[in-house]
């Protein structure tokens, strides 16, 4: 399993609290990796560090053998790592289509002048791509609506669409299924994630609370607790560990 994104020896402290303590994670290329743990374990903080929104006190983030620890977050997106947010952070006053269109990187035909002055509606290729992505997440019939008019479930789908639009190779998804009903999860999200791996060659890392989903979907799992990696392995191995069973896997 070639590792495409790695965090090595990551430490991060806030005020008096150590959020991450010597964390080592390795995300394998073309696979789905899971990140689980109780609330406050540091999962989102780790995502923040991997995606450049937080700089670690110590440690490195390596992407395709390049050290990206201190790069600006938007530069990291260009390199190929994109993340979604637990709080969605969509552009609520803009439409779904606008949210997706904005996230598509600048095409070859665009230069500074056209970016500044040409109406975005005229960019046929981007428009096609945006609609295609909206079809993929099953939100096509709502593209003209402002995001704040959508239901929570629909907004979550838009968040994923926006992530896909960036064209990044590695997708970090922060609780993509929380708040969604089982039907949507099973019929839309899960097949979509699988398709992204098999058809589009993406690499995915999920933070999830649903142990069931993680075991169902992930090839490899990291368990975080109080800022430390307490266990890692494939789902089958982890399931058999009794100590972990009691600590984490209630109801799995």
């Amino acid at each position, binding site marked *: 399993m070639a590792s495409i994104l790695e965090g090595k020896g990551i430490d991060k402290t806030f005020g008096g609290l150590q959020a991450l303590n010597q964390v080592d994670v390795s995300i394998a290329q073309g696979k789905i990796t899971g990140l689980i743990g109780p609330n406050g374990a540091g999962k989102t903080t780790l995502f923040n560090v991997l*995606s450049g*929104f937080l700089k670690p006190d110590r440690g490195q983030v390596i992407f395709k053998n390049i050290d990206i620890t201190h790069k*600006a*977050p*938007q530069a990291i*997106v*260009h390199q190929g790592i*994109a*993340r979604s*947010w637990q709080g969605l*952070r*969509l*552009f*609520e*006053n*803009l439409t779904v289509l*606008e949210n997706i*269109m*904005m*996230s598509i*990187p*600048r095409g070859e035909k*665009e230069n500074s002048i*056209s*970016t*500044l*002055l*040409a*109406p*975005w*509606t005229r*960019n046929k290729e981007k428009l096609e791509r945006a609609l295609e992505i909206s079809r993929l997440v099953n939100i096509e019939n709502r593209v003209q609506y402002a995001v*704040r008019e959508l239901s929570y479930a629909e907004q979550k789908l838009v968040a994923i669409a*926006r992530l896909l*639009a*960036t064209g990044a190779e590695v997708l970090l998804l922060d609780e993509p299924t929380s708040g969604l009903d089982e039907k949507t999860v099973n019929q839309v999200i899960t097949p979509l994630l699988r398709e992204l791996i098999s058809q589009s060659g993406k690499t995915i890392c999920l933070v999830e609370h649903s142990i069931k989903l993680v075991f169902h979907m992930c090839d490899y799992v990291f368990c975080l607790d109080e800022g430390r990696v307490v266990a890692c392995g494939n789902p089958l191995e982890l399931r058999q560990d009794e100590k972990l069973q009691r600590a984490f896997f209630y109801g799995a």
Partner: protein
Amino acid sequence: MDYLLHILIVALINIILVVSFNILLGFTGVFALCHAAFYGVGAYTVALLMKSGGFSFFPAMICAVGLTVCCSLVIAIPGLRVHWDYMVIFAFSFQMIIYHVMMNWMGLTRGPQGIPGIPPASVFGFEFESKPSFLLLCLVLCSAVVFFVRRIETSSFGLVLKGIKDDEVAVQSIGKNVTLHKIVAFAVAAGLAAVAGSLIAAYISYISPGYFDLHMSVFVVIALIFGGVGRIPGAALGAMVLTALPELLRFIPYLPSTILGGTRDLIYATILVFFMLYRPQGLMGKARQ
């Protein structure tokens, strides 16, 4: 009739000011209280170039735009890297610095005495000396500015600006450089304010620092909030109404001229007080989250 033309001309110039300010506050959500400073730099540049440098109108205007854009970078580059709260103060102190420079750099700006005797604008030999002809010039430039800003609003760049207003961090997470976008927005807004400055200098043919002080920056803010933050028609509406308001005061009988200034300020302040609480999106704006 002459009076009406005068109002229209000033209104058109103010429209340029408010519409360009809209790029910052309305589209991007950057509250910068220094628009009058850009206005002033533009005006003074044109005044000096035309009067002492023998420039004709358009070349002077282009230089004014260039210089004002450079000025805006002085404040944008350090100012936009810091948190919003600081940007407000930063812009405000920039406004005050520019104002004091205008007031005190006797050698260049003649301080409070201002610069009189600015020659009328002429383009290819045609002099825009009469009011109707200058009105035409204003109309053309104002339309050009509005068209330009509309194009920015509907462009990919404009979309990102609107995203920044909603959630800067999210904009970073889709791969856009927030600081760069803000700097460009600043530069464009400042350049357009310089266009307005060029017009006012050529029109009044005498400028002084008092016209480009904090008062004016606040006027622009109030006009935008009144008309509708984020919407170009709103900006234009606000500019027109607030330009006309003080003129209407003149027609009120028994209003002593000594309190004219205070009354005007009171009206502006009351508008702002009312709108901030009850209708912050302005007359034509859309309610936001």
